[in-house]
């Protein structure tokens, strides 16, 4: 490597954990590059999303980082070190890797799967098993139950949790994720995304995340790189700024219609002020419940919580006046719960499904936190549109000045 390249490398290591330097990939037997002259920084502790239409080279780009695909030219700098020519197996053990099909080892227990990289690194047995239990807890699966099970005994969502735990096995600084939630039903996907964001808030890993779903990109990304053919970067920015100011027609087309709806992906339920509902417990006397309901004229329903403080049933006045049915079986079951990590877009969708015009917000243990109403979301939309107009105006003013 020449001195000139060395100095460029050092210039990037201060803030970027991963630096791709003019990387290209041309597959043998093809003329068109899959990735053409890509230079990209991935800053420490952020989720960088690579998003683009299929065939744009986003997965290839991801695989260039851990060299499961070897670049044709260019350099890969990882934690300040040029890793383009080091032993790829050693490099990969320092980088967590999650793929859409997960690829758990069917012949190994969950514990053995999660312990794969620690075992390759030669950790001793007690350290590995302690780490496995820690990771299972972290992804919300009880170690006593799941440790000795096999992948075939897991649901799709559980398998993906184990996939994430396995990638975190040796506590790598970096995770590469290729459509990790792509093959999972929408509701489970939502939950997994929320869990993952909760986890990331603690772990602050550096993550490169590939998806073709712009809504997922907006929800998950600290920054988004929108890629066009040959992995050319069309725009790289925060989701807010990409939505407010698409760089060109390609980005606009890719964002598609419904920018307002997409903007709802940026706001999380936990960030806004929740509404209150009249709440009762199974032990609340009926006359007290009736007067509670009458004292809040905006509400047609009471919310019944179970013994653990979790929303259980919607109860109206007619239910309260019918003592033949115990409260635990009266009214309607609470079908829909949203979590603080859900986006407003998620919440809106749940509300439309439930037709209540409101949805219960619960914490990670399922306990009642408050309610989010359709009017609240409308207010947020207005505020966001206002902010976007201001932001666009500022950008225009900046451009005119320079």
């Amino acid at each position: 490597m020449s001195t000139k390249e060395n100095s460029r490398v050092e210039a990037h290591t201060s803030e970027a954990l991963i630096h791709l330097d003019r990387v290209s990939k041309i597959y043998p037997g093809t003329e068109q590059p899959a990735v053409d002259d890509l230079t990209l920084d991935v800053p420490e502790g952020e989720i960088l999303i690579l998003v683009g239409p299929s065939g744009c080279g986003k997965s290839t780009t991801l695989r260039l980082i851990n060299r499961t695909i070897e670049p044709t030219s260019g350099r890969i700098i990882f934690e300040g070190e040029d890793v383009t020519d080091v032993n790829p197996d050693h490099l990969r053990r320092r980088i967590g890797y999650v793929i859409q099909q997960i690829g758990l080892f069917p012949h190994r227990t969950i514990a053995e799967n999660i312990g794969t990289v620690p075992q390759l690194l030669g950790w001793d047995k007690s350290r590995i098993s302690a780490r496995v239990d820690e990771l299972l807890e972290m992804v919300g699966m009880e170690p006593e139950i799941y440790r000795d099970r096999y992948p075939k005994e897991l649901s799709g969502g559980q398998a993906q949790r184990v996939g994430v735990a396995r990638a975190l096995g040796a506590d790598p600084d970096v995770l590469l994720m290729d459509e990790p939630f792509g093959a999972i039903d929408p509701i489970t996907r939502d939950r997994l995304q929320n869990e993952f964001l909760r986890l990331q808030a603690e772990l602050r890993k550096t993550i490169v995340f590939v998806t073709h779903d712009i809504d997922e990109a907006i929800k998950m990304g600290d920054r988004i790189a929108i890629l066009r053919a040959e992995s050319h970067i069309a725009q790289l920015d925060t989701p807010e700024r990409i939505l407010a100011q698409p760089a060109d027609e390609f980005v606009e087309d890719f964002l598609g219609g419904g920018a307002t709806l997409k903007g709802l992906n940026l706001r999380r339920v936990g960030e806004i002020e929740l509404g209150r509902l009249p709440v009762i417990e199974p032990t609340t006397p009926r006359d007290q419940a009736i007067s509670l309901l009458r004292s809040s004229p905006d509400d047609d329903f009471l919310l019944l919580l179970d013994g653990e403080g979790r929303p259980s049933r919607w109860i109206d006045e007619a239910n309260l006046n019918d003592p033949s049915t115990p409260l635990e079986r009266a009214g309607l079951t609470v079908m829909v719960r949203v979590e603080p990590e859900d986006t407003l877009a998620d919440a809106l969708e749940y509300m439309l499904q439930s037709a209540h015009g409101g949805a219960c917000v619960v914490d990670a243990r399922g306990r009642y936190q408050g309610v989010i109403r359709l009017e609240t979301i409308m207010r947020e939309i207005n505020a966001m549109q206002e902010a976007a107009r201001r932001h666009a105006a500022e950008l225009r003013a900046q451009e005119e000045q320079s």
Partner: protein
Amino acid sequence: MESLSSWFEFMGDRADDIVSLTLQHARYVALVALAAIITAVGVGILVRHRPVGREIALGVAAVFLTIPSLALFVLFIPIVGLGFWPTFIALYMYALLPILRNTVTGLNEVSPAVLESAKGMGMGRAQRLWRVELPLAWPVIIAGIRVSVLMTTGIAAIATLVAGGGLGDFIKNTVNRYPLPTSVESVWTGTVFTVLLALAFDALIALVRRVTTPAGIR
């Protein structure tokens, strides 16, 4: 055969021969299986990512299997003489195809996602082979071994024609002596003990399969 009792009488008289010929027969099958497993699994591993090599290897093993068994035993007499070696070589050539074909199939059926994640976590080529590919292909490979062993147990009866011994001796005895007394008893003895030996091998392989197949893919 006069009656069942005359057959039992024959077996009583020839008990020593039955034991020694069964053991000799079993020894052929076991040695051939061992050699064929080493070769066929080894070749299967080498050609698993090479379509041309794979077709050549499978083609050659298939040609071996189409040579008439009688000819295959006799063909090698000019080179290695009579007795053990022409028997071993002929059986070995027959035993290869089922194991080779199942090894190739088993290795090819390993999910690409599993291999990709193994590679992505930093497993080297040898680690992927020993810790992922072979364990996952193993149930298919052992199914091939089973077919191969059952087949060689039956065909090993031809060894008697090249002075190789085994339970075939009882069968050839009938051909030479029919219709003299006890000639029919002799062919039944050879046949029944060959079948019993095959069943014993089958049970043994089923047991090995149970013990060696990882619980997660059983």
